[in-house]
């Protein structure tokens, strides 16, 4: 049998096995019955009416040094990093505890760019609150702590002579998701295996750029000779503009890698047909907005499928290469429909892209006003009538 709890503060939840028993929980929390939290001072008290629970021991980091030892019905003992006994409680018979976590520091020998030093982790229970690397001799390469300004905006990794090895601009991700051992960068052996297999020694990998999160961020990682190896920025979760990846230049538009020629092309140099044939829908949409719908219909003409001579509006259709946006998505578009409209004030023509299902000028115009047009007859009943347009 197993008793677990959830929803408490970090490391205060229970996860215990016991055999053939019954547990009564003092329930003071009425909000959520799926979790029981019995609060008693700084400890969470659960009463075992019967059963056989022996206890557990927590060790410091990967070492053999005890940090906490719980023997149900007997005692709770805690030691600091130096091995000094700091807590010695009696646990009443028939009671198990989930004890409030405390801040502690773990230290590991490690290397950064081949230079030896010490990696210090600040931990609260099992969660990472800070990480610091100092070279032998005391120079600090980085010291980043959760909740500080640096953790919200970014930080730099410095060499022993204070040159910048790497910089990360953005919110630093302290959640352990996707990381081994709860570290920011993680430690690796020379063959790239995880730190856990090597008892806490290895090298720090500054190329692990997923330590920065959020919509927008930027990174730059240099090699030991201070040559940029990896750099670029992310906007709205997508790589944009020039990146350096493994020393090579790569150009991104909306997260899609494109050739340097395409990236640098001026709108007038782009061939509209080539744009409509692009194999990525998002990229194609970006280039269509770059060259403008006006130029597309000027160059490729298209077929006028409906017209409103009074207003001077046209609905134009152009064939489009079918590109599936993702495997769960609707059927890809095979035509592009453009509504050519005239501004009543200036007389200037401009173009609006409308869904491929549009068949009539008025239907397309109403769609741009936000009216649903899945059924033309139903939609017509909902048409917006304009008394005056300027």
């Amino acid at each position: 049998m197993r008793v677990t709890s959830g929803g408490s503060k970090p490391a205060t939840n229970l996860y215990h096995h016991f055999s053939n028993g019954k547990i009564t929980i003092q329930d003071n929390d009425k909000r959520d019955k799926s979790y029981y939290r019995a609060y008693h001072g700084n400890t969470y008290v659960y009463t075992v009416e019967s059963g056989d629970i022996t206890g557990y021991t927590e060790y410091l980091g990967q070492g053999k040094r005890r940090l906490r030892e719980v023997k149900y019905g007997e005692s709770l003992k805690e030691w600091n990093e130096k091995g000094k006994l700091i807590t010695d409680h009696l646990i009443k018979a028939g009671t198990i505890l989930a004890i409030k976590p405390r801040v502690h520091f773990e230290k590991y020998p490690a290397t950064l760019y081949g230079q030896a030093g010490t990696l210090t982790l600040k931990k609260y229970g099992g969660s990472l609150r800070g990480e610091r690397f100092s070279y032998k001799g005391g120079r600090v390469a980085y010291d980043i702590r959760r909740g500080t300004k640096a953790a919200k905006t970014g930080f730099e990794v410095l060499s022993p002579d204070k040159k910048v090895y790497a910089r990360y601009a953005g919110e630093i991700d302290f959640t352990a998701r996707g990381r081994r051992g709860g570290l920011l960068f993680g430690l690796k052996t020379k063959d790239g295996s995880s730190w856990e297999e090597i008892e806490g020694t290895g090298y720090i990998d500054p190329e692990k750029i997923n330590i920065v999160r959020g919509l927008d961020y930027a990174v730059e990682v240099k090699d030991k000779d201070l040559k940029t190896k990896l750099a670029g920025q992310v906007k709205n979760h997508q790589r944009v503009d020039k990146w350096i990846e493994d020393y090579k230049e790569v150009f991104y538009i909306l997260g899609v890698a494109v050739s340097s020629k395409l990236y640098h092309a001026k709108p007038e140099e782009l061939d509209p047909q080539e744009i409509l044939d692009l194999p990525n829908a998002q990229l194609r949409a970006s280039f269509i907005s770059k060259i403008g719908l006006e130029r597309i219909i000027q160059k490729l003409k298209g077929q006028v499928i409906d017209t409103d001579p009074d207003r001077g509006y046209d609905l134009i259709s152009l064939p489009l290469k079918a590109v599936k946006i993702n495997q769960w998505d609707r059927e890809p578009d095979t035509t592009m429909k453009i509504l050519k409209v005239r501004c009543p004030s200036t007389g200037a023509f401009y173009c609006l892209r409308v869904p491929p299902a549009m068949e009539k000028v008025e239907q397309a115009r109403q769609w741009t006003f936000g009216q649903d047009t899945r059924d033309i007859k139903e939609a017509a009943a909902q048409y917006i009538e304009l008394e005056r347009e300027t």
Partner: protein
Amino acid sequence: MDNEMKAQPKCFRQGELIFIPCTVTKEQREFLTRGGRDMGRNIREGEVSGHIHAINAGTLIELPQATGGYYQDGARFEIPRGEMFLTSDHQIKITHPEHDTLPLDHGDYVIRVQREYDETRDRQVLD
């Protein structure tokens, strides 16, 4: 077209903005003006041209969440998040450097931005 089905009142347009007259109760108006963000005089600035659609009177609110009300003929309307609400006891003039000035009677209006199709998503028209 069946006239009984017609739910929309006569609307007004200036460039990419559509002004839809609506009727809200006093309580709804208070809720809208208190809950939304007061946008001052500027309805919308052109992202490309920088030109501004502006009002000369009334209160302009950007709605933080979807809400509803009734059109003048009793049909219910929904105001999606991101649309705007304009209310004024006096006649309103909508101005823009490129478009003719649009006069509107006093009352309540939902302001909607014309949209454009994007095969990856819908987006609003930029001027």
